[in-house]
């Protein structure tokens, strides 16, 4: 198995450029098919322009730095990415959250814990009485002794931990996330279980994320959860709360994989054919604001990675944040959005339909 060591950007990959990614997605690149515009699917449903419902989640991407180089990563994260949120930008987030009815703060990356101000930030957010989700890649807990106490830190601040585990076997996990990731993830899950995470009655939530290790759609979430629960308990004595099934969106490294493996057209066709109007109603961008490492605002983390900022004319940076105006914005759409509306739908919290 060949483990990637560098981000697409560090390798000089053409698709590290968001402009080229958008050209591919819109059928303007050589040898890629053009598909029906996503917005045309929403028009008959009276969902265009797509408007927010209530903004409930403040998702902050604290940086692209990561200890892993997963093949499907839409962030193009990795050890060579140095773009991380500064403490001053974190303070801007805190100023907004302090006066905001938004109850949930979702921390993502990269590996959010690698940001040197991560723990300070968590403590400050918690002091505002917000619910915190940390999207932890698991292996970071074992990556360096300074991270070994993360389970205790998460527990102390009652953080909801959401962690990727693409399968309950090493082969499918490592093929997506790198050699040795499964073994390290199992070790990390055991340490989370040890402090109470995922254990019934503990009040400490540990949710897992499944996403397909290839150019296919995820299985039924409930059925996968049953399989994962049985296999992880029987083989490794590991427990968790819920499993979120997430579709891979054709952005960044997953888009690069699709194009270079010759799977792009078939995968897009699959997403388009599986368009589900119910899933379209419940897309996560309707209740989320996504904040980039440099303080710019986006409709979701995928738009962020495609550099599709909040609609022109709207306040697009933390420095001029205005919740009321954001509630009335038109959400920016593009062809990658088909990933969130295919089949049972997909969001950072799993199925939506």
């Amino acid at each position, binding site marked *: 198995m060949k483990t990637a060591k560098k981000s697409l950007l560090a390798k000089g990959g053409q698709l590290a450029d968001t402009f080229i990614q958008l050209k591919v997605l819109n059928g303007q690149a050589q040898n890629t098919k053009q598909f029906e515009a996503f917005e045309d699917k929403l028009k008959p449903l009276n969902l265009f322009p797509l408007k927010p419902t209530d903004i409930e989640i403040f998702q902050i991407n604290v940086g692209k730095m990561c200890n892993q180089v997963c093949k499907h990563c839409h962030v193009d994260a990795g050890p060579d990415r140095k773009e991380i949120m500064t403490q001053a930008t974190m303070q801007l987030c805190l100023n907004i959250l302090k006066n905001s009815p938004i109850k949930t703060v979702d921390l993502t990356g990269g590996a959010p814990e690698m940001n040197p101000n991560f723990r300070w930030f968590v403590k400050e957010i918690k002091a505002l009485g917000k619910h915190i989700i940390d999207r932890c890649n698991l292996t970071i807990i074992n990556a360096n002794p300074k991270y070994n106490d993360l389970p205790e830190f998460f527990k102390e601040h009652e953080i909801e931990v959401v962690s990727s585990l693409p*399968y309950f*076997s090493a*082969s*499918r996990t490592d093929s997506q996330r790198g050699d040795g990731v499964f073994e390290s993830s199992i070790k990390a899950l055991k340490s989370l279980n040890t402090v109470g995470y995922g254990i019934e009655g503990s009040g400490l939530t540990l949710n897992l994320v499944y996403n*397909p290790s*290839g150019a*296919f*759609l*995820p*299985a*039924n979430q409930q*059925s*996968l959860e049953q*399989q994962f629960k049985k296999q992880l308990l029987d083989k490794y004595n590991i427990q968790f709360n819920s499993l979120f099934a997430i579709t891979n969106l054709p952005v960044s490294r997953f888009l690069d994989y699709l194009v270079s493996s010759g799977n792009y057209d078939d995968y897009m066709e699959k997403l388009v054919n599986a368009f589900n109007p119910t899933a379209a109603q419940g897309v996560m961008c309707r209740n989320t604001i996504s904040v980039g490492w440099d303080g710019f605002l986006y409709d979701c983390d995928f738009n962020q990675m495609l550099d599709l900022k909040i609609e022109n004319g709207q306040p697009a940076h933390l420095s001029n944040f205005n919740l009321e105006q954001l509630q009335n914005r038109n959400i920016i759409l593009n062809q990658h959005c088909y990933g969130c509306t295919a089949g049972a739908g997909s969001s950072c919290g799993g199925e939506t339909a």
Partner: protein
Amino acid sequence: MADTYYDPKDLKNFGNIKDHNPELAEKFFNWYGAVFKEGALTAREKSLIALAVSHAIQCPYCIDAYTVDSLEKGADEEQMMEAIHVAGAIRGGASLIHGVQMMNKAKQVSM
């Protein structure tokens, strides 16, 4: 006319069989859809059975379709290969069981 007997693109045109008999095609596709719904067996188990049968009947369209379908139902290569061995065992066994017939016949015609 294609130069080969099998063209992977034909799989997407399976629905075209309705062209010359829509009534029977509709009945077939409705029944086909019902067969694969979650029931006493899970959708994943049914997909693995379909994958095994695809190998037993050596249908390349079905092998492509049910490889992807098995993955999309949450199976992995280990489970899929075990299912194919089941198909292989039945096929092999079906040949070998006729060895008894051979032995019976040989006995009948031998001194």
